[in-house]
Each structure stands twice: as structure tokens, then as C-alpha cells.
């Protein structure tokens, strides 16, 4: 489908009981696979749920965003580090799909310490009539076999099997915040607060440390790594972001240890906005390369920025997500909301960017037209094919009907995790323990 500037969306949702939020059900990550056929979510209880696009939905304009539960499995369990006497949470921090190389799908999931590689296979046939083994699978006494019998494959109901193929443990001292699969399809990286490691997908007991920003004296620590990602095409390039608002592009061909960056992307601070919270709100919570590989998208507390890889002095575009919160930073600091890590996403053609906000609002910015829209993920908009209305937050002055004032925002409802289908205008929004899927409104003129 072509690029539709109409930002109204038709929604499909997977809702749970909204009045009672179990901590374990809170969704902590959302990720489409490379074709958009599958969508994986991870939650704080260590579970992974995989949704599959319904085959019929691809050709029906109104239901292109139809996804159904395909598989559910427990990826991580709570663990205990006996050496340090520390509990390790089972919360899924990130899920990344591997490019599909055969009939099976593969994904990496990680909690704070351990990365696991999972294989997802389908089975819809079983062999029947095999006479060399008994019903328990043991080999029969061959002397009793008097005839050769060729087994026949009989159809059975589709079964989805998920099996762990690799467990990558003991690579990180601090909490893993990012994993990224290299375009070479053989290696991947994992990043924690102070280090970035490079792994081979087939080797679990060795990784190479490629970035280490841990100071000799931990008292000198003033900056941490917040996110990291490989370039989509150049297997030697990756970027990592910091809690001080900078981005570092590293080239693995230049040096094995990338503590010295190739490029540093930083924006000079606006003195008129200087406050005690300037550093906290400049901390980068997410970084994403564009599909073209030319740009990087970053999210900090109040803005999303687009950076050109060829210009390090400042971003080429800056969009305000919720600038009205600038006057409330002190109370947001007090309530710890200021430390919330919102993610950001590109659409398939790199022309629209999306990110979340409070009150279950999410924001979209069209880079070409410069139009932006605020939409809400809520039960009221969750009926199939309901059209979302734009929302507006008013800061004093005239208030229209349906506007919401800054003081009425619900800061416990936050859209931290969003994902955009790699090829179509279908988006997935995680709102606490609910997953919403929205698609473009189909224009009636098409019929």
C-alpha cells in the first residue's frame, strides 16, 4: 500500500483485564520480525508471546492488521546469583528476530544477564506404520520382524514447537539493555550499562568485549551506555547512546576495541533551557538506524531527534513529544517518571517516526509534511475497526471538548514500547499489560 498521510487508524487489540494489572503481565518489549508476519512480545514475567498475522488478512483491506496468538513460551525464569547473593529478574528486556534462513524462525531474548536463542518450528504431519520400533520408541527384536513396512505421513493439527538452541550466559556484570543482530547474520552484540560484547551465534562460552567505559575507579563514573544497535547494512558499524545525550558511532575495522569512537554526535545545550534536570532529560533512551542506514533516530525524555550519519554537530530534525512537561520536571523527578525510557520507531520507508507518551498517548511525526498527531491506545478505541480520533493536550487558555489538560494526565499509563511493521502501516503499541495493533484506515474510494 502506498504512503497514506491520513493518520487515522483502525485498531485491533489483545486486551486483558484492565482493572487489575499483574506486574508479571506488564509488556516490556515488542518486536516485528523482518517480514512482519510475526510479532513477538516479552513481559516482566519472563514470557514471550508470538502473534502471527492471519494468512487471509493479507488480501483483505479491512483486516490487514489481524494477528492471532501463534505460540507462548516461558523464556526466562527467576534466578539467583549465589556468588553475589543477588536475585536475577526474569523480565524480558529485549527480543530480536534473526533473519529467516530456512523453514524455522529464530529469535534472541534477553533478561538482565542471560541471552537465549530460540527456534520456532511448525509440525503438521506425523509418521505412521513404522514397524521397526515399538510404541515406546525402542528398537524391536529384529528376529520377530517378518516384513518391511514403509511408514506413511498422516496429517495432524498444526503444532508450533519452540525450543532453546543456545544460552549465552556469564557475559555481563551489569544489566543488559540492548541486543542487536549483525547484518552478517553470524554475530550479534549485547550491551549493558558499561560494556558491549560481540558474540557468535554458535558459540556460547566466549564473547569479545568491544566497548568498555568502566572507569578504573567507579567513583569517577558519570556516564552509562543506554542503547546500542548495529548498522542495518555495514557489518562493521554500530552505534551506542549515553546517559549524557551523546551518540558514538564505532567502526570494528578500525580497532578491535572500540573505546575510541569513529564519530561523536552531540547537540550543544540551549542555555535558556538550562536547569538541574537538563542532564537527566537529555539521557538517550533509545536509538534506531533508519532502514536506509543513512539516519539515526533517538529518543530522550522530551524529544525525538533525527541525525544524519554525515553530520555530527547537531540533529537534522527535532520533534517535541511532550514539551508541556518542561514546567513539571521537578514533580516528575520526585515521582521517578523522569527516568522512564521511551522507545522510538521508524516506518518502513523512513518517512514517519513514532514514539510513546503518558496517558496512553502515542505520537507520530511525518518528516515530509511536518504534521504530527497524538493518538490514544485505550479500551474505548479498541473495538475492531474503530477509528481513532486525534487527541490534544492543552496548556492553559481555551480548552476544547475532549482536550485534556496537563494536570489531568495519568502518568501511570505510559506507552514505552512501540513497533512499526517493516513494510506496511501496521503498528503495535504496548500499554502496560495490553497490546494494541492499529492499521491505516482504508479509504472508501479504493472500492
Amino acid at each position, binding site marked *: 500500500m502506498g504512503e497514506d498521510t491520513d493518520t487515522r487508524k483502525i485498531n485491533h487489540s489483545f486486551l486483558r483485564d484492565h482493572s487489575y494489572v499483574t506486574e508479571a503481565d506488564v509488556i516490556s518489549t515488542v518486536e516485528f520480525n523482518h517480514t512482519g508476519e510475526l510479532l513477538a512480545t516479552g513481559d516482566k514475567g519472563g514470557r514471550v508471546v508470538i502473534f502471527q498475522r492471519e494468512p487471509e488478512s493479507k488480501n483483505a483491506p479491512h483486516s490487514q492488521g489481524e494477528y492471532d496468538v501463534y505460540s507462548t513460551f516461558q523464556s526466562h525464569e527467576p534466578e539467583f546469583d549465589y556468588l553475589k547473593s543477588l536475585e536475577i529478574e526474569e523480565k524480558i528486556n529485549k527480543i530480536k528476530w534473526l533473519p529467516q534462513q530456512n523453514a524455522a524462525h529464530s529469535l534472541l531474548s534477553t533478561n538482565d544477564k542471560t541471552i537465549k536463542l530460540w527456534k520456532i518450528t511448525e509440525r503438521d504431519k506425523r509418521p505412521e506404520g513404522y514397524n521397526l520400533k515399538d510404541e515406546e520408541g525402542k528398537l524391536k527384536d529384529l528376529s520377530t520382524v517378518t516384513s518391511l513396512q514403509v511408514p506413511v505421513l498422516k496429517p495432524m493439527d498444526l503444532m508450533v514447537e519452540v525450543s532453546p538452541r543456545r544460552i549465552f550466559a556469564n557475559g555481563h556484570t551489569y544489566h543488559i539493555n540492548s541486543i542487536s543482530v549483525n547484518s552478517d547474520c553470524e554475530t550479534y552484540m549485547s550491551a549493558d550499562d558499561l560494556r558491549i560484547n560481540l558474540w557468535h551465534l554458535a558459540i556460547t562460552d566466549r564473547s569479545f568485549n568491544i566497548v568498555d567505559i568502566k572507569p578504573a575507579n567507579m567513583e569517577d563514573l558519570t556516564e552509562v551506555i543506554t542503547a546500542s544497535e548495529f548498522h542495518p547494512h555495514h557489518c562493521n558499524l554500530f552505534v551506542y547512546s549515553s*546517559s549524557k545525550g551523546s551518540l558514538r558511532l564505532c567502526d570494528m575495522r578500525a580497532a578491535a576495541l572500540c573505546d575510541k569512537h569513529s564519530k561523536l554526535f552531540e547537540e550543544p545545550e540551549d542555555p535558556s533551557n538550562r536547569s538541574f534536570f537538563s542532564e537527566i532529560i537529555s539521557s538517550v533512551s533509545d536509538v534506531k538506524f533508519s532502514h536506509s542506514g543513512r539516519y539515526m533516530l533517538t529518543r530522550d525524555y522530551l524529544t525525538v531527534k533525527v541525525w544524519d550519519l554525515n553530520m555530527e554537530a547537531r540533529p537534522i530534525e527535532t520533534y517535541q513529544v511532550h514539551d508541556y512537561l518542561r514546567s513539571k520536571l521537578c514533580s516528575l523527578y520526585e515521582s*521517578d517518571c523522569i527516568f522512564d525510557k521511551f522507545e522510538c520507531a521508524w516506518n518502513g520507508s523512513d518517512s514517519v517516526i513514532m514514539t510513546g507518551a503518558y496517558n496512553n498517548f502515542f505520537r507520530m511525526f511525518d518528516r515530509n509534511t511536518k504534521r504530527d498527531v497524538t493518538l490514544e491506545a485505550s479500551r474505548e478505541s479498541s473495538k475492531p475497526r474503530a477509528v481513532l480520533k486525534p487527541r490534544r493536550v492543552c496548556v492553559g487558555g481555551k480548552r476544547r471538548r475532549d482536550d485534556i489538560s496537563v494536570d489531568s494526565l495519568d502518568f501511570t499509563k505510559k506507552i514505552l514500547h512501540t513497533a512499526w511493521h517493516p513494510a506496511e502501516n501496521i503498528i503495535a503499541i504496548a500499554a502496560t499489560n495490553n497490546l494494541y495493533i492499529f492499521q491505516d484506515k482504508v479509504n472508501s474510494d479504493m472500492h
Partner: protein
Amino acid sequence: MFARGLKRKCGDQEEGVEGFGTVPSYSLQRQSLLDMSLVKLQLCHMLVEPNLCRSVLIANTVRQIQEEMSQDGVWHGMAPQSVERAPIDRLVSTEILCRTVRGSEGEHPTSELEDSPLQSSASELPIVGSAQGQRNPQSSLWEMDNPQENRGSLQKSLDQIFETLENKNSSSVEELFSDVDSSYYDLDTVLTGMMTGTKSSLCNGLESFTAAAPPPSSTCKSDLAELDHVVEILVET
């Protein structure tokens, strides 16, 4: 001659901290932020596995506040001396003139004030307040200023300041004691020192209006050193 002398004093103070009248509320905001941050850091320490990014951001904020407090310490030491030589009524006049200067008013209001130094025009203060608001429209740190600026009289303003000090002191104490873990001896000691510091600050405010001697600055520096030490310990965790 009188007017010229007063102008020079206003200029000095304005260069220092954007006006004498705003010092107490800005300091209160900063002190409150520091208190909040230290409590957050201690909670980080108590967590089994603290969020390192959050801890580092809070620690950096604490360092920034301390740095600013250290710089302000120099001005703080000088101000009482200059105030010491001035009688109370002149201090009052200086206060009014400073506000006038901040409002960027012409000579006309100045001459008005000269005629009646102890009185303030009802129409003048709202203008000054508005200007003050425009200067820092989005800074939460200055939120408390606007209501005070719009008070009808200086006496009420002073009462408001002292009332705020008392409320903040009480609030700080409750906050600290409800959250502080007694098992952490060093931080407890530092917090006790801070409370003493707060009281000293209040007393110092009172003394400056009665032309008393300021407290020694070495105490302040040693307190800051202790805070640095605690912050470093917490960050290392």
C-alpha cells in the same frame, strides 16, 4: 547622591544572584532538590540490584547542586557584611529598589519610591511580578517566586518567606526520618549535619536582618566534602 549609592548596591547584588529578594526561595528549591536526591540515592543503595543509569543521573544532579552551592558560598559570605552597615529602613529601601531594577522600570518609579521609601505602590508590584514570571516562564525552580512577588506588602512577603522556611524545615525532617535507614551510619550523620545546616541557614537569615555576624564558611565546606564522600560511596555500589 542617596539614589546613586543605592543603585550601585543593587547592581552588585543583581550581578551576584539575580536580586537579593529571590535568594531565600531559590535556595529553598535547591535545598529541597538536594534532600530529595540524597534520599533517592540512599534508596538506590538499599536496592538489591540498583538501576545503574538512574543512580548515575541522580549522583550527577547532586554534584551539580553541590557545585552551585559552593560557588554561592562566596557571595553568601560577603553579603552580611555589606548589610551589616546599613540600618533596617535602608535595607527595606534597597529591597524595593532591587525589584524596581529587575522590572526594568524607568526613573519615574524610582522617584516615586524616593518620596515614600517605606511604602510600595499597589500597581507597581504586579508589574514586577509579571516581569519576573516572563523571565523564567518554564522553570519549576522559580514557581514559588510569583505568588510572593504579588503580595501586597513587604511585610507579608517577609512573613511568607519565614513561613515557607518553617514549613520546608518541618517537611524535610519528616521526609528524612520516614525514609532514612538507621543502619546506614554515614548517610545518617551527613543528614543530621544537613539539618543543622538548615537551621543555621534559618538563623543566619534572621541574624542578617539584625546585623549579626555570619557563621564560619569552613563548616559549610566540610559538610560538602562529607556529601561528596557519601555520593561516591553510593555510586560505587
